[in-house]
Each structure stands twice: as structure tokens, then as C-alpha cells.
């Protein structure tokens, strides 16, 4: 008989960003139990709030029947002793052994029997491991050292199969049928059944479904929206309500960036815009059933006022010293112990921007870009570095080209983020990141596995994105100090960008990069071309032929000796035809854009096929053989400048 199932792990407040991941793992762990016990996968639903992780299923199987698996033993001819040993291993007597005919003669066989278990038994012995099997980004002990670890202390467990409690225990907490409501508004101990579980919790101010909590918040915030913040608040509350507060219009004189940072990052409020302008209002999400007396609103308004006051104070203090006068102060701000101060870094960025062809605006932006690190506002709101520098530069009369470059120079901070909006910003950003990469690789600070304290992957990824999307055509490879590890590192990021972000096929990316990646705009153009030509009839077969050519050359250990093809040694027919066609195509390639060029190369296919059909490369006459290898080698070399076709994975 199948039964419904409910598991609720009641904890102290789990960090909001970990809840979804934990639920996925919990589901996976329980799925493993099903797999190990050879049970058909069960349908599971997951729910989570800050204080509980829940798995439910409308139907769990009744249990697992006996599992019988035949195990082969020794040859009968080996003798009695071996048979006894084999029988003993499986806990049966020799007379219970079966004999069957194997290809090498009669062998013993035994039916290994794992006795069946009820679902309750399986769960009883598995659930502790299932729960503790969640791998948390950071876990803790509670109670005594050496006990179980979890993200926060486990305080109750509900585990029901039908009407029955699945008995198990974690760190002294026994499973049962008693849950707990909202910390403040609900009852601390609530007896539940699977049928009334969700309803009982709702009566006790816990909305189980994250989706429903999200809808409640969405309904309250209207047009104000911010997906990251929304998700945070969904997992910070069990019973969300939205309240609206205001602040003095006076504060709107501060830059919107600062106000929004305070509201969003420090206070977790939604900022409100009216007609595209920041309004003097905010929306806060509480874990309460409304705010009938307005006490919560007033409290939040007071906190926001204090924070805005701080920001205003810092803003005004910072204006007393211009960015230009702060450059020298950067000597006292360390970039990295071995790589010196930010003043030294600034000098290097300036030099690089010049090398990259930056104009006066670019150089000026480079000079000022790090100065905001000495301002009070950035010390307080580190996430606004760059932005604050840009705003101060604007305030202090720097040209738009300069202040926007400073403002943008940390961009892109992710693959979803945009690149700096103007050329100066793009160059400063690349120079800054390149300097960090060269410096860190130079002193051996190379990311390993998940350890990347200087965010070098992000820096490299940013460079790639700016080069491609900013259509900047300078030879990036030449700027890597001939550092082989750094080249490999950047190449990895280039591959990732085109493959995972842009969605090109991995073999196309490999084929294009194998033909060079000095100019990433060019790489993109070649990729677009190969992607377009790929579905045409001749392309993949030709790629297969190129692979064949490569193999032939490899087997012959022929790497080309600079010798030209001797036309007089060519056999009339397919060989001469191929040669002529090759010369025709080669003649046209130079003036063609990539796509027609590739199409042109692909058009060689029938001739290549015919050549392989009719001509023996490995001719008995060494001179002819050498000439044929030279022909193939030349063909391969001349036609691999756009892409290395042998990297294309084909079905043929």
C-alpha cells in the first residue's frame, strides 16, 4: 500500500541565499535512497522558509521486495574447498548452490538475496543521513564539538509516512508530528497530520510556498522590482507584508546611486521611481501581518534617515578635496603587498591605456580612476567604488568622457552586466584588469579550483567581453607578457565566453581558436561564418576529410619541408583535378569575407573525396609519395587560417 510522505526539518534562521540549494540537495539525497533501494523514483515537492526545509510526496511505495541477484562462483572442477568457501561467503550451504554451464565449463551459482524492507524501515535508517548529507557553504556545530554539523541548529523534525511517525534522531532532536509556527505570531508547538500540515501552518502565519510568498510581495511592491532583492526577501520571511515609507525630499539631492545602494543593499528596501525619477519613498518587506499602528514604518524611516545622514556627511566631507588632489594619497593604499600601492597601479594603468591607443580623456580617467578609494563614501559603501569616483569627477567638472570612464571602469562585474559605455572607459577597464592579471600571475597568485581571491577569472572574462562587444581590435595576446599560464588562462575564458555565454558549439570554438586568437573581434567573425556554413551539405564531410589528411600526415610524420608541389609528378585525373581546384580556390580566398571563403573551401569536397577514392597517397615511388604528402600538407596549411577543420566533430 502506498502512503503520502512529509519531512520537515525545523531550524533556526537559514541564510536566505542557501535555502533553494539545500532543498535541491535534500531532494537529491532522498532520491539516492530510492536508487540504492532500487525503488522507482517518487514524485517529490520541495518547500522552504528561513526556518524549515520540507520534502513531500503524495505517494511513496509500500517498500522494497526481496532483491535476488545471481552471483557466479568458482568452476565446479576447482573442487570442494572452493565451493565451500563460496557458499560460506553468501551464508548458504553447499547443497543450496546451483550449477550452470558457463563458456569455460560448469560453474557454481548462488542466488544472493537481500531481504525486502517496508518504506518505514528504509526511511527510518536513511533519513538522518539524508538530512546531514546536505553540503552547506559554511556549517556549524551547536551543543558539543564533534556533533553533527548543519547550517544552523536543528530544533524540530516532522517525519510522517501516512499517519505514522518515521522515527529517527539528529543531535538529540527526535522526529515527530509537531511543528512550529511563525516565531512571533504563531504557536510554538503544533500537532499536524500530512493532510492538515500546510493549513495548520497557514493558520500560524507561515506561508509554506515560496511562490506564494513571492506573489504576496509582488502584489505589494507594484512596479518597483528587483529580482535579487525579491528572492532574498522571499527567504527572509515566513509571512511577508509590504509597507511603504517616505524620507525627506532634501536627501534626493544626493546621487540616486548612493540612495539606492543604501536602500537596497543596506536596508533591503525597494526603491520607488516616479516618472523615471527616484521618489522619496521606499517599500520594505516585513515578516509580519501588516503594520496596523505604523510603528514598523516609523522605525524603518528613522533608520533610513540616519543612514542617509551618514551618506550626506561623507559626500560633503569628500568634496573638500578634489580627486585630482588625491592621486598622491594612493601611495598609502596598498593594492597588493608585492604589487605595491594603488599609486603604482595607477601609473601602470596609465601606461597601458596609452599603449592601447587611448586619448587624453582615457589617460585622465586612468589617472583618477582609483582616487575614490581614499574617500569616506567609498570606505562606507565599498560596492560603490568607481561609481562614486565618476560622480565626484562630474561634480568637479571633468569632461563627460572622463567621468563616465571612471564611473564604468569596474564593468562588467558579471557576464550579464554591460561593458563600459565609451572608449575611454573600455580602455581603462581593460588596462586595470590586465594589470591585475599580469601582476598576480607574475607573483604566482594563480587561481586554483574554487580559490580565486583576486577575482582573476572575472577580470579575464571582463576583458574578453569588452574586446568582443566593444569591437576593439588590438592584439590581446601580445599584452600577456609571454606568460604561458596567463595565455592558457585567458584562452579558457575566451572559450567559456563564446561557448557558454554566446552559445557557439564547442568544436566550432576549438576549430576557430586553433587558427589564432590574437584579435577577438576577428574570432567572433570567423565563428559567425563557420556557424553559418556548418549546416551546408559539403561542410562536415570536408571537415572529416581534413581530419583524414591530418592523420595521414601524422602517420607519415610529414610536417612539410617547404618544398613546392611538383605539378609534373601529378597523376592526371583526380589528383590533378584536386590540385587545379585547390589553386582556383586559393586564388579567390584572399579577397573574400569569411563566410564565402569557407563556402569556397567546402566546395572542394567532391574533389577531395574523389582523390581519396582513387589515389593512393602511399605510392611506391618515394618521389610521388612525397609530392602527394606535400599537396595534402599545403592544402591543410593554406585552408586552416580561418579554422582548423580537424577540430570539427563529425558523424562520419
Amino acid at each position, binding site marked *: 500500500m502506498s502512503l503520502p510522505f512529509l519531512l520537515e526539518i525545523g531550524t533556526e534562521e537559514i*541564510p536566505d541565499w542557501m535555502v533553494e540549494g539545500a532543498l535541491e540537495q535534500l531532494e537529491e539525497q532522498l532520491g539516492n535512497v530510492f536508487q540504492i533501494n532500487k525503488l522507482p523514483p517518487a514524485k517529490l515537492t520541495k518547500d522552504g522558509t528561513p526556518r524549515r526545509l520540507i520534502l513531500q510526496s503524495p505517494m511513496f511505495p509500500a517498500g522494497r521486495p526481496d532483491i535476488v541477484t545471481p552471483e557466479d562462483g568458482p568452476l565446479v572442477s576447482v573442487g570442494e574447498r572452493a565451493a565451500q568457501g563460496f557458499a560460506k561467503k553468501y551464508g548458504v550451504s553447499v547443497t543450496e548452490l546451483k550449477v550452470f554451464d558457463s563458456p569455460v565449463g560448469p560453474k557454481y551459482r548462488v542466488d544472493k538475496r537481500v531481504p525486502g524492507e517496508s518504506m518505514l524501515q528504509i526511511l527510518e535508517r536513511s533519513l538522518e543521513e539524508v538530512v546531514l548529507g546536505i553540503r552547506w557553504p*559554511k556549517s556549524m556545530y551547536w*551543543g558539543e564539538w564533534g556533533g553533527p554539523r548543519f547550517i544552523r541548529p536543528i530544533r524540530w523534525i516532522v517525519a510522517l509516512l501516512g499517519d505514522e511517525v518515521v522515527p529517527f534522531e539528529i543531535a538529540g532532536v527526535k522526529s515527530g508530528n509537531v511543528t512550529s509556527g511563525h516565531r512571533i505570531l504563531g504557536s510554538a508547538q503544533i500537532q499536524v497530520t500530512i493532510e492538515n500540515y500546510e493549513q495548520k501552518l497557514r493558520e500560524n502565519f507561515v506561508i509554506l510556498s515560496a511562490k506564494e510568498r513571492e506573489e504576496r510581495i509582488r502584489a505589494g511592491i507594484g512596479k518597483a522590482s528587483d529580482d535579487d532583492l525579491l528572492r532574498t526577501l522571499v527567504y527572509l520571511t515566513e509571512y511577508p507584508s509590504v509597507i511603504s515609507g517616505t524620507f525627506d525630499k532634501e536627501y534626493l539631492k544626493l546621487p540616486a546611486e548612493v540612495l539606492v545602494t543604501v536602500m537596497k543593499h543596506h536596508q533591503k528596501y525597494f526603491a520607488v521611481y516616479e516618472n523615471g525619477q527616484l521618489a522619496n519613498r521606499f517599500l520594505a518587506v516585513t*515578516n*509580519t501581518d501588516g*503594520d496596523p499602528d505604523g510603528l514598523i514604518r516609523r*522605525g524603518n524611516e528613522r533608520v533610513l534617515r540616519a543612514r542617509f*545622514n551618514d551618506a550626506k556627511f561623507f559626500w560633503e566631507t569628500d568634496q573638500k578635496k578634489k580627486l585630482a588632489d588625491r592621486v598622491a594619497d594612493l601611495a598609502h593604499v596598498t593594492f597588493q603587498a608585492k604589487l605595491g600601492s594603488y599609486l603604482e597601479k595607477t601609473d601602470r594603468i596609465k601606461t597601458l591605456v596609452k599603449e592601447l591607443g587611448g586619448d587624453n580623456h582615457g589617460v585622465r580617467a586612468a589617472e583618477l580612476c582609483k582616487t575614490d578609494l581614499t574617500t569616506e563614501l567609498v570606505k562606507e559603501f565599498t560596492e560603490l567604488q568607481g561609481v562614486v569616483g565618476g560622480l565626484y569627477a562630474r561634480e568637479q567638472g571633468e569632461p563627460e568622457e572622463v567621468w563616465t570612464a571612471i564611473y564604468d571602469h569596474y564593468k562588467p562585474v558579471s557576464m550579464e552586466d554591460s561593458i563600459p559605455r565609451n572608449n575611454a572607459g573600455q580602455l581603462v577597464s581593460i588596462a586595470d584588469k590586465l594589470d591585475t592579471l599580469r601582476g598576480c600571475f607574475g607573483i604566482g597568485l594563480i587561481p586554483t579550483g574554487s580559490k580565486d581571491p583576486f577575482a582573476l577569472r572575472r577580470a579575464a572574462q571582463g576583458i574578453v567581453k569588452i574586446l568582443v562587444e566593444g569591437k576593439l581590435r588590438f592584439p590581446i595576446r601580445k599584452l600577456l607578457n609571454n606568460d604561458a599560464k596567463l595565455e592558457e588562462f585567458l584562452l579558457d575564458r575566451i572559450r567559456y565566453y563564446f561557448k557558454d555565454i554566446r552559445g557557439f558549439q564547442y568544436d566550432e570554438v576549438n576549430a576557430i581558436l586553433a587558427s589564432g586568437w590574437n584579435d577577438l573581434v576577428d574570432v567572433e567573425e570567423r565563428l559567425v561564418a563557420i556557424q553559418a556554413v556548418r549546416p551546408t551539405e559539403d561542410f562536415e564531410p570536408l571537415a572529416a576529410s581534413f581530419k583524414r589528411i591530418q592523420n595521414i600526415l601524422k602517420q607519415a610524420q610529414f610536417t612539410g619541408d617547404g618544398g613546392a608541389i611538383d605539378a609534373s609528378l601529378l597523376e592526371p585525373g583526380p589528383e590533378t583535378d584536386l590540385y587545379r581546384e585547390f589553386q582556383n580556390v586559393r586564388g579567390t580566398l584572399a579577397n573574400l569575407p569569411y563566410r564565402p571563403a569557407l563556402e569556397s573551401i567546402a566546395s572542394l569536397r567532391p574533389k577531395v573525396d574523389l582523390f581519396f577514392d582513387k589515389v593512393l597517397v602511399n605510392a611506391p615511388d618515394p618521389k610521388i609519395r612525397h609530392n602527394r604528402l606535400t599537396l595534402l600538407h599545403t592544402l591543410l596549411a593554406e585552408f586552416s587560417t580561418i579554422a582548423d577543420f580537424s577540430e570539427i566533430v563529425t558523424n562520419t
Partner: protein
Amino acid sequence: MDSYQEIIFKLKKYWSDRGCIIQEPYDLEVGAGTMCPETFLRVLGPKPYRVAYVQPSRRPADGRYGENPNRLYKHMQLQVILKPAPNDVIEQYLGSLAAIGIDLKKHDIKFEEDNWEAPTLGAWGVGWQVMLDGLEITQFTYFQQCGGIDLDLVPAELTYGLERLTAFLQVKDSVYDIEWAPGVSYRDVRFADEVQFSVYNFEMADVATLWKLFDLHEGEAARLLGEFRKLEKPLPDGRGSETVSGDKRRFPLLPTYEHVLKCSHLFNTLDARGAISVTERVAVIARVRKLAVGVAEAWVSQQTADELVEAVQ
């Protein structure tokens, strides 16, 4: 409306009723209640302990000449240590808020992830900042390590920001306006030292003198730790081990630790004075940490010696 001191009385009474020793503030400059021996040393080892105390906490860099309504050079923390943390520790904590007149049903309380780490103490834990209507009122931490040592019993540390909490309860925008005692404001009591210490820390503290003091205290702490380590070495023939054990038990580790605390505070003052570059910073933190970790290790060793003697007796 309760005065500042009334709120403190109530909180002390509340925790006293829950088995806490009510200690008085430690009589040395510290940056946080955590640094007092009542926390830093008592959380080590297997003995349960419960204590609560108000600790004036000095953060030279946070001084604002009395001009900022929310930032203070010296603020008061109510520090509560429950070792081991009881199962209903959060309920007990919420009870303390009710005890000072906060009707939780009318307010919004959230526990937001905030893991705590004190690099100079080799200490860290996981926990939350407790937010009341958007205001951080308490730091709640389950200690995991202290002085680089794994803790046998995981303590809960509750650190209440008393000025903020009072400003909240008294509905004041500035901490200087809160009523300390009937008719007496926080400004009346504390304004002068906020101004004067800001002037000293930011403008007048003599950097050379502070460094000299730092070196002296560091030297003394290191010397004492060296002396203690000599007692740790087993004698080759086992002779005199009882004397050694006796010497170990009476060894002045608490005074040693005071020199470490002096270093920590001098470091903070030098930092506020702008005398420590970012590079140096890391190195100086490491120097203080080395001493703090040394004291923690010695303390555990001394406690073990005590237990051995107790076991024999």
C-alpha cells in the same frame, strides 16, 4: 518610558534570572565585550558558564567628535555568554526584548545572516544580526573557534547595542538625546569624552609614543608567554614536575592577556590616527593575533593542569 539605565537594569535582571553571573565591566580598554577575559578565556575548555555584563567598547576610528547622531568612539555593549547555548536560546533572547517593553507582535524582527570573525583574536562564529524594524540591535553568534582553538561547548554570544536599543525604545533620532537617567541625557554624561577622544585619536595622539607603547606591551606579553612555555617542557628526569605543575597553575596569564589587550587598543588608536598603512595593517594584526592565540593555548594548558590537580584531590 524607561531610561537608559533602567533598560540596563532590566536586561541584567532578566539574564540574572536565567542563571547568568552579572559581571561588572572589565577595567581596561577593549574594542568589544568579546575581548574581555570573561568571554575570550571563559569560552575555552569544557566548563559550562553563563555571564552577562555591560562593556564600554572603544573604537577610536568610529569617533565623530560628537557630531554624528549614531556613531560613537565609545559605546556600551551588553554582552551575554551562554555556554553551552541552550536549545531555546532564541526564545530566551526574544524574551529579553519583551522584558524591556518591546511588543514583538507590533514590530518586525528578522535574523539576517552575519558571520562574525575577529582576526586579532583568532576567533570566529556563525550567526545573525538581529534586525528590529530595519535597525540592527544585536549581534548573535554561535562561537566555533577562539584563539584558534576549537570550542568544546558551543557558546551563544549575544551582543546588544545599548544606545541603539534605547534610542529605538525612546524614539530618538540621536543617541545624544536619549535619556540616561530621569532628566539627564546621554549628551550630558558622555559628550565631552566623545569630543576629546576624537581630538586625541585623530589629531593629537603622538604616533611615536603609541608605537613605543605597543612595542613595550607586546614585548612584555611575549616575555611572559616565553616564561610559561618553559614550564610546558617536561623535565628530562621527571624531577620537580609537581613544582612545575604548581608554577603553571599560578602563572600570571591574566596579566599577560592584559598586555595583549593594550596592544589591540593601541593598534586601533594608531589605525584611527592614520599611522598604519594597509600593508602594515595585516602584519600588525598578525602580531596581536599571535599573542592572543598564545594566551588562549596557555590558558587551556593551565586549566588542564588545574583539572588534573582537582582530579587527584
